[in-house]
């Protein structure tokens, strides 16, 4: 992007570390200090640690910074163990349903051993089941100790009538969270990628009977639609990095690039793919074949200009060193846009009104 401010250290470092040959960011002590804080603020400290390991550059990092990266690496290792364990228990709980269990996002990257998994910390496990089996899946999970978290009648209706998932469930003893999806976008959204197409193309995980992940192109498209119809961007950079790493990984096979634009059209996800390719290559230097970029239609140039101004502000780390005066406005506009993309205007107005004035106030503790 044009402005130096919008090319923060962390983005430059991720770019340098995910390319071949990977390079160590050239930084002094104060530079490492800022880099690690930007990474911490956007939940990428463990990712940075894993990237340096993958590139064999860890030993060259100054000792105090390396020590902090070591601290984060412990979290990443524990997280990976925890996710594999939880997935095993979810699989067990849903075994009697006899449907393939499709993992989405973080859990899928972890179990499939894909590059974005390295150091990625996430709080819930997302799975996809056929809509007609949703009730059975919910009952089976409840029997195994997961319970719904949203008890407010309005929230129940919001999820069950309008959304693409059950209200999030939390395990009563282990406190692990699971989101059971039947589609990747809400029922009320104008884009309606057909979940049956996604399920039909899902690929089994070798050595893990009953577990599936989305096909490579679908995984990228899901990641893209998730990020670019989001309304909060606290882990925007992490999600962009996911897409960058998936594109680089799957893109080694030329068939992937041939399939991607066609599949995007088939699933009505061309627009999010356009943004994903655009911001991945602009910010992280993803190598996208020119023919693919040209084949994916975007909005009008004026709209692209506006989106550049907005996304360049929310996809950088959410850290004091990367903010400017227009930041809050950009976040607010994208918050509205995210909701707009999920619901038709009248329903959206009703929903936001209800959330603002009628929903009981949650006593959210400030401690994170």
């Amino acid at each position: 992007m044009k402005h130096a401010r919008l090319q923060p250290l962390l983005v430059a470092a991720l770019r340098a570390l995910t390319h071949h040959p990977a390079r160590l960011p050239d930084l002094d002590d104060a530079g490492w200090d800022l880099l690690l804080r930007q990474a911490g603020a956007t939940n990428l400290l463990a990712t940075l640690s894993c990237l340096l390991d993958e590139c064999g550059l860890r030993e060259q990092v100054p000792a105090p910074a390396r020590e902090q990266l070591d601290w984060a690496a412990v979290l990443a290792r524990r997280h990976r163990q925890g996710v594999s364990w939880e997935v095993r228990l979810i699989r067990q709980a849903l075994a009697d349903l006899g449907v393939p269990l499709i993992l989405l996002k973080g859990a899928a990257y972890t179990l499939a051993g894909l590059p974005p998994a390295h150091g990625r910390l996430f709080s819930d496990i997302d799975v996809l089941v056929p809509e007609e089996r949703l009730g059975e899946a919910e009952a089976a999970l409840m029997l195994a100790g997961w319970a719904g978290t949203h008890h407010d009648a309005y929230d129940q209706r919001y999820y069950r009538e309008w959304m693409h998932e059950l209200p999030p469930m939390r395990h009563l003893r282990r406190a692990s969270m699971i989101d059971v999806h039947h589609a990747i976008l809400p029922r009320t959204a104008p884009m309606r990628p057909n979940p049956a197409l996604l399920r039909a193309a899902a690929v089994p995980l070798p050595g893990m009977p009953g577990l599936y992940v989305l096909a490579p192109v679908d995984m990228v498209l899901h990641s893209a639609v998730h990020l670019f119809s989001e309304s909060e961007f606290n882990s925007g950079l992490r999600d962009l990095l996911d897409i960058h790493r998936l594109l680089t990984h799957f893109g080694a096979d030329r068939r992937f690039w041939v399939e991607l634009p066609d599949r995007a059209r088939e699933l009505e996800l061309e627009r999010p793919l356009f943004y994903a390719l655009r911001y991945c290559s602009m910010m992280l230097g993803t190598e996208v074949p020119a023919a693919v970029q040209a084949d994916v239609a975007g909005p009008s140039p004026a709209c692209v200009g506006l989106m550049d101004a907005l996304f360049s502000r929310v996809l950088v780390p959410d850290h004091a060193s990367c903010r400017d005066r227009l930041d809050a406005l950009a976040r607010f506009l994208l918050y509205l846009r995210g909701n707009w993309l999920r619901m038709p205007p009248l329903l959206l107005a009703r929903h936001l009104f209800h959330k603002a004035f009628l929903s009981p106030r949650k006593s959210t503790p400030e401690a994170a």
Partner: protein
Amino acid sequence: MTHVGSLTRAQLGECLAGPGIHLRTGRFTTLLRSPIASVADGIHRLYGDYPLSSGFADFHLDLVRPATLRRWLRPQVTLLYDRRSMFKPLPLDQAFPMFEWGLNWCVSSRANRYLIIHAAVVEKNGRAVILPAPPGSGKSTLCAALVGRGGWRLLSDELALLRLEEGVLHPLPRPISLKNASIAVIRDYVPGSVMSRAVTDTAKGTVAHMRAPADSVARAGESALPAWVVFPRFEAGSAATAEPVARADTFMQLAQNCFNYSLLGAEGFTALAGLVERSRGYRFRYSKLDDALAFFDSLP
């Protein structure tokens, strides 16, 4: 390297209100900023012996007054971790104790290359005693007496840091946190002790911090080998008695006092098992500090 003590109170206050100071405590560097006078007072009084560094900091902490309307009625202080608020604000009077608690939180929630036990650690002749701390056990009082008068070196009053790779205890000498009655007890018992102003009505009652011995601060780079685990219990009127604790029991009780035992998984288990293997465990009851000091000197 300069020390906090090389700055006058006025210079320190200016630094804290401006660019901040890179305060080194043991292996950790904290960039601390605060315009609040009681924070500068506390640092000036208790941290004179600590080195100042520059460049890299492990933790960035700001203690500031939140800009809410409430500031005119009931002034508050909030702790920012890298400019983010992590905790509910406290009354302004508790700003200095909040720094101490905040720094403990930073270390215990992040420094995962250590097995971190909620315990005091003191050392003599290279061998360390770990004093785990169920609340009300009188751990800090005992710790203050041991380092103030018993000739023991302070490694830490709150956090035992067992380095995973080497199985040694790394020092984190910081002010010792005393509560309620023990403030007066230690003021009388330890000659020349320097204390921060007592702050009343905190979540822990009245709190004051005692300055760490200069020698312990100067030797913050010297690690120690664990040799004993003593579970202290203050019981008014009781004679000093020590009964040995079986290894398995010592292990379980230490594990319960760890901040990151389950996070570290097998590595944590191995490290803790190594520590217990090398240490003798005792359950120690006492009512007089003199008796307690005599017991610690008799540890085999």
